[in-house]
């Protein structure tokens, strides 16, 4: 694995939603410039883990570090300022606005030249969005919406993308496209943490694989290594010990 210092670190974190603890003793490193894929069965806590990175859960104990800085109790909007972008699973675009309006809105605090430059970058990464520029975002396909959601994130040039199940509810073909776009995003130099329900497809594009079962990390290592495990399926379902 890369020798560079990880962009983000969790140290012995116990977390959950208010009274209900769903994550137990999680220690994790997010490598810079890579795609980290979090997989696990439903209800295992993989989305909770992602939300914990962005400060959307209650952390009972342990530490969350971003670029070496302790941000355990920092609220989400301040994390956004530090350079973290969270892409929600649903409602991650403005459906009644056009594509270009969505992108302009994301960069509303940038100078005009800077904004145009970044929109151009988004269009270069996702040419489909250029074609759909003046179309209402809500009329686009599920795959294109996720593309736009990533584009909205890109405008703000974050250091870290946190993407929550972007393929949920999409047809398999479109889901593949979405994951290919996540890869593209990474190729542009962005660090990505991805929660993915489709284990194989997710791990195929990832560098690092993290398997969460019943609120605990049961595997943490190179993605291809996890993918190659013969007992992966049983491990995944918590059937193999």
């Amino acid at each position, binding site marked *: 694995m890369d020798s560079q210092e990880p962009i983000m670190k969790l140290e012995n974190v116990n977390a959950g939603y208010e009274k209900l603890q769903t994550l137990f003793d999680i220690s994790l490193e997010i490598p810079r410039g890579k795609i980290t894929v979090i997989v696990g069965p439903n209800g295992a806590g993989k989305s909770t883990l992602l939300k914990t990175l962005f400060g959307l859960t209650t952390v009972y104990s342990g530490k969350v570090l971003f670029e070496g800085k302790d941000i355990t109790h920092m609220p*989400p*909007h301040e994390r*956004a300022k530090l350079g973290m972008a*969270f892409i*929600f699973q*649903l*409602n*991650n*675009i*403005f*459906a*009644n*606005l056009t594509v270009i*309006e969505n992108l*302009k*809105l*994301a960069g*509303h*605090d940038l100078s005009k030249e800077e904004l145009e430059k970044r929109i151009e970058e988004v269009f270069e990464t996702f040419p489909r969005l250029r074609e759909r520029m003046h179309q209402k975002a809500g009329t686009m396909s599920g795959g294109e919406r996720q593309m736009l959601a990533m584009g*909205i994130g890109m405008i*703000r040039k974050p250091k870290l993308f946190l993407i929550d199940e972007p393929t949920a*509810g999409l047809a398999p073909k479109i889901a593949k496209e979405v994951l290919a776009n996540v890869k593209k995003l990474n190729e542009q130099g962005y660090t990505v943490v991805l929660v993915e329900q489709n284990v194989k497809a997710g791990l195929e594009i990832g560098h690092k694989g993290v398997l969460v079962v019943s609120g605990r990390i049961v595997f943490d290592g190179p993605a291809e290594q996890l993918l190659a495990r013969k007992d992966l399926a049983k491990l995944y379902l918590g059937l193999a010990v």
Partner: protein
Amino acid sequence: MDWNLFTSTTIYASVLALLSLGITLIYMTTKVFNFAHPRLSLVAAYAAATLMAYYAEATGAQPNLTPKHSFLGSLTVPFSWEFYAIGILVSMVFGVIAALVEYYAILKPLQKRGADYLMLMIATLAYDFLLVATLFIYNTHVDVRKVLARIGVLSTKMSMASYDVTVVTGGGVFISGSFIFSVILIVLLGLSLYILLFKTTLGVKMRASVENPPLAEVLGINVERVYAISWIISGLTAGLAGYLMLMAAGAGNLKPISATSPADEIVVSAFAGSIIGGVNSVFGSIVGGLLIGYIELYIPNWLAIWTGNAELFKYSKVISMLAVAITLLFAPEGLAGLLKGERWKRFFGKKEEEG
């Protein structure tokens, strides 16, 4: 065509359009039906009348009802143009003040405490009561009476219709200033709202904040400010409606202004406009308000002619009630929904597909 019926109906319909728009804007942002909304117009009307009267007093102006000849025909301008400009300006300012007080002093703090829609609706009613009481006291205040009497207006059944600008064309057609004003107003309002919402960054932010507040906030948009702006627009248009009520009392179903009138009578029609417009559509509300205004007066008129029973005219308000019932029960998305074909999409399971 009955020209007088048409012009007075147009003024009334414009008032409804202005009020429906305000109700819709507040529903879209604050998620509450503002029962106090028509009352904001009365506040504005009183403020406008008072300041117009003060202006007339200060300049020593007397109403001059002798018509002048102009290229339009015989033109009557009872007071100077500044007089009317002051009225318009003051009504807008006071409409905005009354709206912002409601939002900042009552609704926003209640929302922060987690009040549900019922509590908010009741709170708007309470604010309405407070305004009624204030106007009760105000319109019988000795000084107010004196000032208003100076320009020949009663303070409890207030109408300045006789001081409206009028034109009688060569062909004998009577055109009131309020009619011209209301037509220009609606066209300008539609146009400027279109430009604001679709051609400016602020408009895009507004639409974004209405549609998806959490996402807008994540992107660093000041959602609160956007809400404040819609309250300002809402107050502004309520104020303009108040000015029209004052200058055109008697037009359509508009009654002379008092603490309770015409807000009490117009409230259902204004909500009808907002609801048949679709509640969540700015342009729908303007069209809905206009539509209600026209059908409320034209349908009973036709029925009266058809049956020869002029009594039917009294029931005109029942029409807006029926419009509300039919819209809510059969097309809850309103006109906007029908035009967008939302209903058809829903029939084909669009919603489930999204989820």
